[in-house]
């Protein structure tokens, strides 16, 4: 899971999730979506508009990090997908496959059967070979950037370089046209979630193109791409080869869907607040910015059309554990007390923006233990921080706080700066556009920053997604997201141990242990569990945010009149 923040928008996943009693707390008893029952019950017709700040949609399943329930899910089906409804824990459910997978060989082998009668948009049948090919192409170096959990799990995945040199990945077997078998290196209990990721769809080899598939995918879902105006819009129309009876999740309400690209977040939010003309049939794919949240709070009609998720992604301040001075754990612990979390929360929109955080595993994830190793008031403990800094013998040096200018509102960086200034730490805010930002933090030697503001959402509802990508030492540099450059053999071992543990409650206990162990070393300051708010027009119905992920479920949105 790798994410430019804009992609994180569509992608993310937070964790108010699987199971859990906690999720039930947020539970909204009115289940507004049409249960998992007959999709035909949903209102049909109309043209839905989706306003997004993205300037392009990447339809290539090998390079996309899209969530199962957002954009790509409308066009491309996967082996499994998510049944994500308001107030209920999200479930992984069969999509192209007849079930969520049959494990054998102690969880190392997973077998799937395709539903009969599935077709691509051109009428050719979907076979297991197309699924296998889709997974194989995600290994190709020229198609990097997608979710890569499966790459280290499949046997031979480490050395496989994609199908373009004529090689196949032998750990994926297709004994017949409707059966596909995956052989894993070790048992992996969350495998049904892994096969809900974009690469586990179907791509016909004859229509594949490394550069062209991003704009011209071959649809398997209820919609196909009809028209792409570069940088302006993408129009989807119905795919008549999609058979409603094979699909329990997608209601396919609107006749067509138009993505309006490159929309400024503030402007989209204002359009949706105004709710005039075609915007009545629109919703925003981006978070509503704090200024517009304040505006909505004073506008009763817009308030009804604002949907806020439960506590989701973790927003955190990463401390570069390899930077001069910050190698000292005392200094990092001083930062835990120095940061003004309350100011950060207010800068993120106050109560609608999130809840104060102290753990790395986000609320709602199985086995999460609530603890706070650095007890302090929400605005920090200045005296304690000063004391720790003087014990560490900190010599004043300017710290560079790197922020992603596309994702972070400027007030957030200043809230951190202000908090640290109280203990005499001078901070320079270095603001970089999204692509430069991710280059700086995930590539190279990390010498260009001391602190980074970031936020993280697991790609599937498991503590694994909270911890492994951010704190495993294998994820330092080279595109990995261990941006605190944190390396602790003890933690690596706990991660390895929890990953192979098939007993979920035992695994959860190990993850909780890892959470605490990491926080002792203080490589990050957990700031808030963010809540995401979205606006929709007055004709848009069944617009719900499930417990996991904290994003609207595009697959069930319909239009009323």
């Amino acid at each position, binding site marked *: 899971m790798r994410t430019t923040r804009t992609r994180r928008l569509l992608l993310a996943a937070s964790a108010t999730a699987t199971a859990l009693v906690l999720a039930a707390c947020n539970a909204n008893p009115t289940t507004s979506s049409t249960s998992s029952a007959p999709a035909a019950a949903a209102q049909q017709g109309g043209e839905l508009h989706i306003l997004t700040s993205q300037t392009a949609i990447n339809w290539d399943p090998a390079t996309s990090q899209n969530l199962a329930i957002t954009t790509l899910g409308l066009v491309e089906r996967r082996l499994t997908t998510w049944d994500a409804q308001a107030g209920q824990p999200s479930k992984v459910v069969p999509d192209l496959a007849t079930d969520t997978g049959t494990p054998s060989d102690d969880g190392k082998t997973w077998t799937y059967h395709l539903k009969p009668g599935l077709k691509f948009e051109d009428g050719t049948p979907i076979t297991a070979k197309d699924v296998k090919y889709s997974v194989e192409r995600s290994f190709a170096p020229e198609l990097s950037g997608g979710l890569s959990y499966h790459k280290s799990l499949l046997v031979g995945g480490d050395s496989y370089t994609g199908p373009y040199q004529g090689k196949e990945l032998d750990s994926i077997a297709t004994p017949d046209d409707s059966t596909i078998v995956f052989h894993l290196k070790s048992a992996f209990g969350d495998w049904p979630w892994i096969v809900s990721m974009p690469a586990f769809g179907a791509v016909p080899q004859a229509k594949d193109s490394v550069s062209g598939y991003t704009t011209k995918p071959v649809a398997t879902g209820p919609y196909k791409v009809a028209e792409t105006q570069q940088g302006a819009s993408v129009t989807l129309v119905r795919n008549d080869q999609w058979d409603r009876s094979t699909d329990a999740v997608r209601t396919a309400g609107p006749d067509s869907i138009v993505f309006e690209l490159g929309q400024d977040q*503030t402007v989209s939010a*204002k359009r949706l607040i105004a709710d005039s003309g075609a915007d009545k049939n629109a919703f925003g794919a981006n978070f509503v*910015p*704090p*200024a*517009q*949240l*304040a*505006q909505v*709070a*004073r506008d009763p009609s817009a308030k009804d059309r604002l949907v806020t998720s439960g506590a989701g992604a973790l927003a955190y301040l990463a401390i570069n554990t390899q930077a001069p001075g910050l190698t000292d754990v005392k200094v990092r612990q001083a930062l835990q007390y120095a940061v*003004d979390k*309350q*100011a950060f929360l*207010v*800068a*993120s*929109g*106050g*109560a*609608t*923006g999130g809840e104060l955080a102290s753990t790395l595993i986000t609320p709602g994830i199985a086995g999460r233990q609530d603890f706070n190793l650095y007890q302090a008031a929400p*605005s920090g403990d200045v005296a304690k921080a000063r004391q720790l800094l003087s014990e560490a013998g900190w010599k004043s040096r*300017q710290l*560079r706080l790197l922020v992603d*200018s596309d994702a972070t*509102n*400027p*007030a957030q*960086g*200043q*809230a951190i*700066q*202000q908090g640290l*200034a109280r203990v005499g730490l001078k901070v*320079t*805010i*270095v*603001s*970089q556009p999204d692509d430069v930002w991710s280059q700086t933090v995930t590539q190279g030697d990390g010498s260009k920053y001391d602190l980074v503001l970031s936020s993280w959402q697991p790609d599937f509802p498991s503590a694994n997604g909270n911890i492994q990508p951010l704190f495993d030492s294998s994820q330092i540099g080279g595109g990995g997201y261990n941006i605190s450059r944190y390396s602790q053999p003890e933690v690596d071992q706990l991660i390895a141990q929890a990953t192979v543990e098939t007993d979920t409650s035992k695994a959860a206990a190990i993850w909780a242990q890892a959470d605490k162990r990491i926080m002792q070393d203080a490589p990050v300051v957990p700031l808030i569990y963010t809540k995401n708010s979205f606006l929709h027009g007055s004709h848009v119905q069944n617009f719900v945010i499930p417990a996991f992920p904290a994003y609207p479920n595009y697959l069930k949105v319909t239009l009323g009149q």
Partner: protein
Amino acid sequence: MTLDHADELVAAPSSPGAARPARRETWWRVLRRDRFAFTGLLVVVGYVVVALTAPLFLGWLGVDPYTYHLDALDENGAPAGWGGGISAEHWFGVEPLTGRDLFAIVVMGSRASLAVGLGATAVAVLVGATLGVLAGYAGGWVDVLVSRIVDVLLGFPALVFMIALGAIIPLRFPHSPRILILVLVIGLFGWTSIARVVRAQSLTLRSLGFVRASRGLGAGSGHIVLRHVLPNLAATVVVFATISVPGAIGSEAALSFLGVGVQPPTPSWGRSIGDAVTWFSSDPMYLVFPGLALFGITLAFNAFGDGLRDALDPRAVRR
């Protein structure tokens, strides 16, 4: 020297010496009569005094532009209360999402605006006047070179380039002083028009009788430039400088608005205005106060500059 020019006046139009005090009195009186310009001057002086004494003044009032007042915000991070949180404590209300005192921000913001406005103008005048005189007086290849540089710079998309520089320099040199960068970037793109005017005037002056006379009497180039050319350019340069200050202040605001100018938490009107745009519908006063401050200083400088030009214009004096 040929005799063709013997009928020219040998005295300079305003030679240093006896004529000067009278002239100064005259332009001052003209300026005093021009109420608009005079008000402009008073406002400019007021801004400068406020900017110079800002930390003392704010300290005396007990506010500062850096302290967060989260209690002055409602649960959404918007200022609580009327007019963006206007109260006895916070005269202009508070900044949304941070609760910093907006009055203090506006007052301290004048420092960045004036420092950059005056600094960049000083750089522009220094470079422009020097090169202009050099080109106009020396002529020849120097003139050709300077004039071509001016042509190139005038045809250059300066704002785009300034944005690029404003974005790149801090990345390469994270600890460089932003105000100085802004002064240099804006100043070094703003000298061309001054250089052109000064060059043209120097060309004229060079061939005037009193200059030629002193050269005929054996004066060196340095003496002529310092004693005869520059004093006669002073009025033009002063007027030009005054008129270009609001332009430089505007450039600073524009760059800060676009996020490549003065960096937080140093207050800047341009950045406040940039932040306030998204808040306009829920908290208009956040945009109004920094906007008015910027409007006030640019209007005052323009009014003063216009009046000064009228006052120093020889035709206007004779009126």
